[in-house]
């Protein structure tokens, strides 16, 4: 028996060409480790990407890989899954690739529930084209194409996914390898479109946009790692989220001595889309940033299941063209 593959076995011979210090490196490591952990078969695994720094990803993962065109990876992946539903397909996209030029395709791949993992590397900027503001950039982002600051309101990737009908929505941080790995495993285990937003630091064009909640010293207070069935606590258990039925909003409450009893704190129910909506809409910095599996709907059949009308494999033929040619009315011209 051959030894199980390690993270290193998923590295290719290609020189990785991201800027030194780019968050993409950490994500690549986490993905390679996840592949090893889940016992992925490189011959059955495909990484599909669009265009962008993030979309160079497939060249660095030793499995099948396809670097498509800008924004179209979800559409390509859908065709691939229909042709071969057995493949394990990961889609890698960026905030520009997946939400501006490819927003339409992402919407439809999610609502169709194609069984792929979609990893959206959100750096709130167009990295590859040298730093223009993106659809996730905050208002006021100064960039070569918005020297006075951008004026358009950003889209929240996870809220977009929720609105699109995604059945699995999770969030992680590039440098938090352990937590990201767990999140990726959960995404992989989900049957259907699993959407994961990864906060990724573009050290060159948008350095530290996420530092207000990713920095070590603020992380405890500024992040909440949600887990199904567990109370929504953060700051080492000192704070929690409770629901105010008067305002229909979440509130941050101190827990324990001088605060509210723990029973007041909401328990995370990943199957509740209304709660997902609230967790994803929490304004910063008054609230922590929700991370982990925020929404996981009860299992529903993946799109590619049954696509070939119940046949065992794509292209299996119950009929012959020779017979189909004679469907309808046929007449015979006799000789002579």
């Amino acid at each position, binding site marked *: 028996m051959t030894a199980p593959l390690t993270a290193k076995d998923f590295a290719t*011979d*290609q020189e990785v060409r991201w800027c030194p210090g780019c968050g993409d490196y950490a994500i690549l490591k986490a993905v390679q480790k996840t592949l090893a952990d889940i016992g992925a078969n490189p011959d059955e695994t495909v990484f599909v990407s669009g265009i962008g720094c993030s979309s160079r990803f497939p060249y660095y993962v030793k499995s099948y890989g396809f670097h498509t065109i800008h924004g179209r990876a979800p559409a390509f992946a859908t*065709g691939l899954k229909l042709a071969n539903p057995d493949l394990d397909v990961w889609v890698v996209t960026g905030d520009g690739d997946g939400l501006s030029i490819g927003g339409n395709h992402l919407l439809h791949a999610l609502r169709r529930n194609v069984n792929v993992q979609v990893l959206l590397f959100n750096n709130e900027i167009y990295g590859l084209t040298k730093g223009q503001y993106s659809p996730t950039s905050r208002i006021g982002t100064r960039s070569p194409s918005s020297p006075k600051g951008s004026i358009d309101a950003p889209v929240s990737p996870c809220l977009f996914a929720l609105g699109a009908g995604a059945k699995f929505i999770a969030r992680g941080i590039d440098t938090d390898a352990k937590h990201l790995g767990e999140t990726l495993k959960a995404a992989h285990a989900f049957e259907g479109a699993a959407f994961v937003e990864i906060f990724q630091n573009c050290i060159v064009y948008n350095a530290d946009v996420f530092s207000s909640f990713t920095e070590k010293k603020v992380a405890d207070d500024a992040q909440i790692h949600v887990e199904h069935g567990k109370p929504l606590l953060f700051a080492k258990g000192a704070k929690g989220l409770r629901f105010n039925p008067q305002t229909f909003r979440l509130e941050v409450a101190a827990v324990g001595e001088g605060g509210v009893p723990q029973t007041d704190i909401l328990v995370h129910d990943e199957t509740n889309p209304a709660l997902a909506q609230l967790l994803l809409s929490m304004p910063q910095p008054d609230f922590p940033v929700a991370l982990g599996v925020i929404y996981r709907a009860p299992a529903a059949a993946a799109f590619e299941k049954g696509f070939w009308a119940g046949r065992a494999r794509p292209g299996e033929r119950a009929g012959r063209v020779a017979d189909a040619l004679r469907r309808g009315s046929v007449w015979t011209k006799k000789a002579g």
Partner: protein
Amino acid sequence: MTKIRPEHQSIVVRFAGDSGDGVQLLGAQFAESTALAGADFATFPDFPAEIRAPVGTTFGVSAFQINLGARRIATAGDAPDVLVAFNPAALKVNLPLLPKGALVILNTDEFNERNFAKANIRADPRETGALADYQVIEIPIKALTLEAVKDSGLSRRDAERCKNFWALGAILWMFGRDRAPMEAWINRKFAKAPDVLAGNLAALHAGHAYAETAELSAEIPQFEIGAAPMSPGDYRSITGAEALALGLAAAGELADKPVLFCSYPITPASPLLHHLSRMGDLGVATFQAEDEIAAACAAIGASYGGAIGVTSSSGPGIALKTEAIGLAIAAELPLVVVNSQRGGPSTGLPTKTEQSDLYQAVYGRNADAPVPVIAAAGPGDCFDAAIEATRVALRHMTPVFLLTDGYIANAAGPWAIPDMADYEPILHNAPPQAPDSDDPADLKRAIWARDPESLGRPWVAPGMKGLAHRIGGLEKDIETGDISYEAANHQAMTELRARKVASVAKFIRPQEVEQGPERGPLAVVGWGSTHGVIWRAVEAARKEGLDAAQIHLRWLNPLPDNLGALLRGYERVLLPEMNMGQCATLLRDRLEIGVIPLNKVSGQPFKIAEILDAIRAHYPAAARTPKPAAVGAAQ
């Protein structure tokens, strides 16, 4: 009463009415009856762009034309000999098409002030002399239908809708046709609605009986159209869209691969999607994507996954697919792109036909991005064209354009059902064995080891053991497929892509001359749906003693190797096409041959007379000798 035997053993009948009058069904059933009678025919539906335009308006007129004959029928006919008009608007729109002496059958129940107003007609055309040149038969079709179906239990509205079957009954009598097959069809079709079934049958019989006893002053004529000389065998009626769908299914079967057809609805391409959606049992699946870009990308994803990816649209949607087609070229993956052309630019004339996307297919991409282009010559030919396009896509690992148009998609005619055993299997370049080596370059070289003749690379799909590799739209190293920005490599890859498409010429049939001499005074060159009309025009010219030839192009990129020499053998080349001269440009570009363009962009197919006139006008004067007698005397 004596039967009329039309002069050319053929006759053109046109049914016209409101979209809701059921003229398409009426036409289709008359065509079916024509087929069973052994006559040859060609049909052409002429729909309005609106789904249900206001009743009685000229822009809501829907028409169906059929040319039927006891001889070979090549087109749906230049001008109707018989027009059945269900309302004043239908008469107004179609009157200009009629030659003097045509027979006009009017549904007089609709000839009233209200309907004249809707059609913007000032006075009753029956009284203004507007119909003086025609033979007019007035029949209150609506009233007679209502009377005939009164026992069926149908509401007045539904009873009125039986009038197309009343008209069918009358037409069947006029052509001496058997009613039994139509009865059987009605019994099958309306089995679930017994009242509609009863109403339609009653109407059919009443129409027939009415015509037979001719309870009116003007006698209804009868026409005699015998069986046409067709080679023995089994036939069916087929539209281009149906033939194309079956051809794609056949290609999948011949290649033993699944076919994944990815499309987004657009007129006039949608019928292909609809037909294929019912062919699941033939190993075909259809994916209705969110837009044409997604459709093209999904098809490429499918091809990468080892299925035959097919995408289809009309010009505006093809424009959206352009970038993705470039990806398939770069990644060297098979893809069939079907374009059912329509009038443009922009939204243009969605329901009208044109051949104006030839530039788009041959030249219309960024960078040097050649693609083979094949055009179907008519409805039945779509079957073979689909098989041929797929064969080339798989052999050369390239996208292939298959051009058809709104006319071909919707037109129908008898089709000799092919024998699947006559088709060679469709082969592809098999994936290599995973090399037993630690050097990753060995695997890469194996994956990119192209066939020396076709330059097609092995079709390696994910899931194949030991062959995992990475590809994409970035320029690849010619040997390893790794990303390469090397100057010399890009030069070599660009040349390779050009040579690959050029190599298709080695595999296609040399250009043949369809009628007429292999060299001579004038060749009429055509491509796509003009085949039938050019055939008839050249035939007519030859009967007049003009020694014209017909040459019909199938592959437009690359052109057959012998085409240049062949065309140089004619003093003049006339090129009719439904655009402003796109194929003319192509021939000038590729062969440096000047042609006389004959361009028509009215949204309507060419008429035989238009091409015949052009042949007469451009036929070299010096070649005009009183031919048949001279030849005969010499023998």
